[in-house]
């Protein structure tokens, strides 16, 4: 009996430690974003929202926030469309070397972001293409396309083939089958791929740093703020970024995974 209580409390303590290890840095970040003082380090001097006001008043930060959203949403949309088309053709048609093609599509996942960024930098240089938000977006499509492809491809099962067949039998053209039947049917996984890819793009630093010049994304802007020393303002913007990611994950969880369970 005592033994069981002991084992039980040890496992609860272990669980608490694991979560503390994962979330303590974030909790500290959020706590000191409310610091009433100039340094985000202990002791905690008192509660204040002045740093949030400073963040929202900072035009450069707000511009970077807008850029990040633009890049995240548009690059994720492109990744999802390309990923869906690739998954559809590989799942529904007999293509030459389809195992190899699947491998090639997923391969960029294994390459480090730094290498991808360097490769793209060299390529863009050779093409005389100026660095901009567009080039950051291209970089993010390169890293998110494999993810979108893998998620959407995994959800394409044989049981949907008869449904597509029925649509074709009722007079739908190939394009209409894809647009009116296949894509809506796979919408839960397409949206899951979209939101995951938005969160990855939103947080991504190396590619955004190396492939941008005048307009930068939020992580790059935060990094340049950090160079001038620690400041509760960076904690505030960090907390906001974290909040946005959590919000996205919650949307994903409740709107999509909830719905697939019901089906």
């Amino acid at each position, binding site marked *: 009996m005592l033994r069981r209580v002991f084992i039980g409390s040890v496992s609860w303590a272990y669980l608490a430690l694991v979560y503390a290890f994962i979330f303590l840095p974030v909790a500290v970040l959020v706590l000191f974003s409310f610091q009433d003082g100039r340094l985000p380090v202990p002791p905690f001097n008192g509660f204040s929202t002045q740093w949030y006001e400073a963040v929202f008043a900072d035009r450069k930060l707000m511009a970077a926030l807008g850029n990040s959203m633009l890049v995240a949403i548009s690059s994720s949309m492109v990744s999802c469309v390309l990923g869906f088309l690739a998954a559809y053709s590989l799942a529904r048609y007999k293509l030459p070397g389809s195992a190899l093609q699947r491998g090639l599509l997923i391969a960029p996942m294994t390459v480090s972001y730094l290498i991808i960024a360097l490769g793209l930098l060299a390529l863009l240089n050779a093409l005389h293409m100026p660095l901009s938000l567009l080039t950051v977006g291209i970089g993010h499509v390169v890293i998110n396309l494999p993810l979108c492809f893998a998620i959407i491809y995994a959800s394409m099962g044989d049981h949907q083939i008869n449904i597509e067949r*029925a649509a074709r039998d009722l007079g739908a053209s190939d394009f209409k089958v894809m647009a009116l039947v296949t894509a809506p049917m796979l919408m839960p996984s397409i949206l899951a791929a979209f939101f995951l890819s938005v969160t990855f793009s939103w947080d991504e630093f190396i590619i955004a740093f190396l492939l941008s010049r005048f307009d930068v994304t939020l992580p790059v802007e935060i990094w340049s703020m950090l160079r001038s020393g620690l400041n509760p303002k960076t904690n505030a913007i960090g907390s906001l970024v974290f909040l946005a990611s959590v919000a996205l994950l919650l949307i994903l969880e409740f709107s999509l995974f909830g719905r697939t369970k019901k089906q």
Partner: protein
Amino acid sequence: MTAPVSIENVSKTFGHFTALDKVSLDIRAGEFIVLLGPSGCGKTTLLSILGGFLSPSSGRVVIGDRDMTFVTPAKRPTTTMFQDYALFPHMRLVDNVGFGLRMRGLGKAERDEKALGFLDLVGLKASAGKRPHELSGGQRQRVALARALAVDPEVLLLDEPLGALDLKLRRQMQDELKAIQKRVGTTFVHVTHDQEEAMAIADRIVVMNQGRIEDFGPPSQIYMRPRSLFSAGFMGEVNFVPGRVRAADASSAEVETTLGSLALPAANFTAKAPKAGDAITLTIRPEHFRGAEKSDDPMFALGDARVAGSAFFGTHYRCHLQPCATDGDALVAHLPQSSDVRDGEIVPLAVRAADVVALPAASATL
């Protein structure tokens, strides 16, 4: 709409496997045809060729008076009702049923009205706003039927549509299917491996085996006058009694069997006319055995048999009878409820001449 279908010498091979071997079939407009056979007999392949999902390796498919052999499913006057219903999970029922009309360019108001009419036909008008996952299996099946009928096809192809339903619901749906087919008048081609289902709904049954058509005709003819041993065995329980033709003329034949000799009308030789010396197999349905009771029809006495086991089935006793004259295979007979049979009892056996069908012996057909 409705149209006749003509299948001319259609073969289909997958690599070395022959799924269909020179199949020819003429279906009249408005007929309810059932393709019946065990799995792997080619019935689904034939249906896919009619629907345009497969192209035959050789032969022709004519629907109405147009050659449809290589026309895509979308351009054929056929629709298919799939075994798993294949409803669009993200659409309301009214949109599911209206999908084919939408593809034909009908406006929303018009197609919704038509779709509601077809949902009404299958008794689901009140659920028009629901989605497929909210329905039971039988209801989904009805929606699939409404969706396939909504585009007014000339031929409706049904791929084991009742296979996933439980027995009671299946019997009920058979009646509904038959009633709806009568109302719309469309030619129905229905695939199943359930011979009771086939008899319940078909105008004519096509019995298939190993890529060939074994028998084709109205249910009563297939059951009472099968034209092959396979067809006789597949349509229900049957006793096979080996024999030999001793003498034959144009109207009758003298047949010798282990149970005695019989004179059979030539009409009972359904596969080919009798010839002296032919090895044959007599097929006798279990319910055709009579006791020794009097009858106006010509009867054959088959000698006495010993009851080797019996079970009460409600409508009849199913008995295993060992003929006293031979130690060959036991016979299965269905005796009336009123007959009080006991194990070990000796009963006289008789059969009406008209009920015995003579077919070429199994080795002779191969």
